[in-house]
């Protein structure tokens, strides 16, 4: 048995030792997305986004002779594999920058490796307000945090509906939904809106009638919900079944067409803050949507953010004087200013978080529409 293991190992070593060819004008970009596992629904959109962006940038000739090459890997929604993919990108594929990973928890475990290896990372879907860009100065986030989206969404909804108090329902055993709740609570407090009740549930729960009945008894004007999309649909439909027609606003977990697919007509009128204004007439946005339609994909926010991630890296290369090294890209990020992207004019904040306009969407006739 040991002999066979040794010969297997020898073959593996021999296979891996083949030199990697690299032409001077090719810049490799690694993309680590959850193509399988729990977050696969987001990963598929992100994959479509980066693939289209790489093609578009290469075709545009913006980078004068530099060709971007995409190296795509699956992190299987697992910390362990996320770390393995990052080490592969850094040491084996020798990429100049990494886009991803899909989830904030994977990023917390994998991004420090890129920071140590001085490789720029561009998170395009990590929305945890704390602990992502804090990892270090090689992490430049494109996605808006919940703390950036929710307060402005709340302002728009308040102007529209004019509610006087609010209640919150959230999943307290999941990092993502708990993080969203913290922001909701802080934003309501900052806006001076009294919170009449807070109820919690667990990720595996399927019946929310107890929490909803308790909340309904307090009769709030407005309900904020921080949940993953699977629970979001159940919460919305069970609330409507109780005959409760309170206006509902969801966190980033609601940001998926699966909400309407699962909740059906009950989802009508539900509001969600979003980083991507789908209805924007901006030509860059319209071209992005047309490009995705041509590829047979109905793009969502995650697709637009992933697309923007590539545009930002390409602009950083241009800003660095057409140089695609790791340090060049990192230096270039600081000079990215008002870059036209599907998300609007994009710049980085001093905290290396993305900065662009957020929007509010509302479900109408089974589709997300921008609340003007």
């Amino acid at each position, binding site marked *: 048995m040991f002999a066979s293991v040794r010969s297997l190992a020898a073959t*593996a070593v021999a296979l891996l030792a083949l030199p990697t060819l690299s032409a001077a004008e090719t810049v490799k970009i690694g993309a680590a997305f959850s193509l399988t596992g729990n977050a696969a629904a987001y990963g598929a959109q992100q994959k479509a986004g980066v693939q289209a962006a790489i093609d578009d940038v290469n075709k545009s000739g913006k980078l004068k002779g530099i060709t971007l090459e995409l190296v795509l890997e*699956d992190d299987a929604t697992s910390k362990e594999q996320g770390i393995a993919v990052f080490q*592969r990108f850094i040491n084996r594929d020798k990429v100049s920058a990494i886009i991803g990973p899909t989830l904030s*928890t994977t990023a917390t475990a994998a991004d420090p490796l890129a920071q140590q290896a001085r490789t720029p990372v561009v998170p395009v879907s990590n929305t945890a307000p704390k602990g992502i860009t804090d990892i270090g100065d090689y992490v430049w986030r494109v996605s808006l945090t919940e703390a950036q989206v929710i307060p402005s969404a709340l302002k728009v909804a308040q102007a529209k509906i004019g509610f006087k108090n609010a209640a919150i329902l959230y999943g307290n055993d999941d990092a993502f939904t708990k993080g969203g709740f913290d922001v909701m609570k802080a934003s309501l407090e900052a806006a001076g809106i009294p919170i009449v009740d807070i109820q919690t549930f667990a990720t595996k729960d399927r019946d929310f009638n107890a929490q909803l009945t308790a909340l309904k008894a307090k009769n709030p004007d407005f309900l904020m919900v921080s949940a993953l999309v699977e629970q979001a649909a159940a919460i919305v439909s069970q609330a409507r079944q109780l005959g409760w027609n309170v206006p509902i606003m969801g966190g980033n977990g609601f940001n998926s067409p699966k909400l309407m697919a699962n909740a059906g007509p009950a989802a009508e009128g539900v509001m969600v803050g979003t980083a991507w204004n789908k209805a924007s007439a901006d030509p860059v946005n319209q071209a992005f949507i047309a490009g995705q339609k041509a590829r047979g994909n109905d793009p969502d926010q995650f697709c637009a953010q992933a697309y923007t991630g590539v545009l930002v890296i390409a602009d950083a290369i241009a800003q660095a004087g057409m140089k695609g090294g790791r340090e060049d890209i990192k230096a270039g990020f600081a000079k990215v200013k008002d870059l036209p992207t599907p998300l609007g004019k994009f710049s980085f904040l001093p905290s290396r978080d993305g900065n662009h306009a957020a929007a509010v969407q509302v479900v109408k006739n089974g589709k997300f529409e921008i609340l003007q």
Partner: protein
Amino acid sequence: MSLESLQDLWLTYQSTVAFIGLNGLLALSVYTTLSCGQLSLAQAAFMAIGAYASAILTFHSGLPFAVNLAAATLLPALVAVPLGLPVLRLKGVFLAIATIGFGEVVRIFFVNLDYTNGALGLTAVPQRTSIWMIYAALSAALFVLWRIRGSRAGYALEAIREDEPAARTMGIHAARYKLAMLALGASFAGLAGALEAHYTYMVSPSTYSFTRVVDMLVYAVVGGTSVFYGPVVGATFLTALPEILREISARVGLAPGPLRLFVNGAVLLLVILFLPEGISSLPRRVRAWLRSRREAHAA
């Protein structure tokens, strides 16, 4: 092969090597209780206790990492004793259910503990674990289990596993042995938890859910539980397989995605179907097959 490419190869796969060691240690923690016929599914909870204890010590005390690890090894064992006293009276599926219950209690405790940020957990835990530490821990665990085997205690454990009432009639203090093995398994899990927390920069309750115990159990079963090193073989195989498949699909030019997952499952199924006693039974089976062929040839 140049020195540089060897170094890149090591850097690329060092995390896989680290996780093989960690998962090996976790598989041994499940094996430890299995070796006396007990199916304890509380290992993820012990792992969580070790991980949280060590992370809290790292953040709030200046203790050296070795002391920190020692605490993470001892604390789960101390928790295991009072848990084991009532719970080990149960057998088979009842013991499994009770220990699953304990696992959930511990996870939900950490979900609701504001001191450690609840569900968000502790992030930016400094990386203090080196790969040699993981393998030193794994070797120590293997050494302990190897020494137990063939000793007086080893025979006692085997007797309890095969027939507990008979073992008790022989004067073996079954409860004491079972409790000792539960505590030993808990300390392996706690140590692995502490090492993992300081390798992956984070501790969060979702890491220690029920699926994690199932993973450990699968390592042990796929590797084989008839020999003490079987679980480590299983952990090695199952941790390396996704990365080997990743390498193969990259070379073949296959788009990353569900296919890799499918092949991973298919390989696993084949192993379970054709090697029901685990991968560690492979050399024995090959030897038996060669012998039967030689005999057929001679006749």
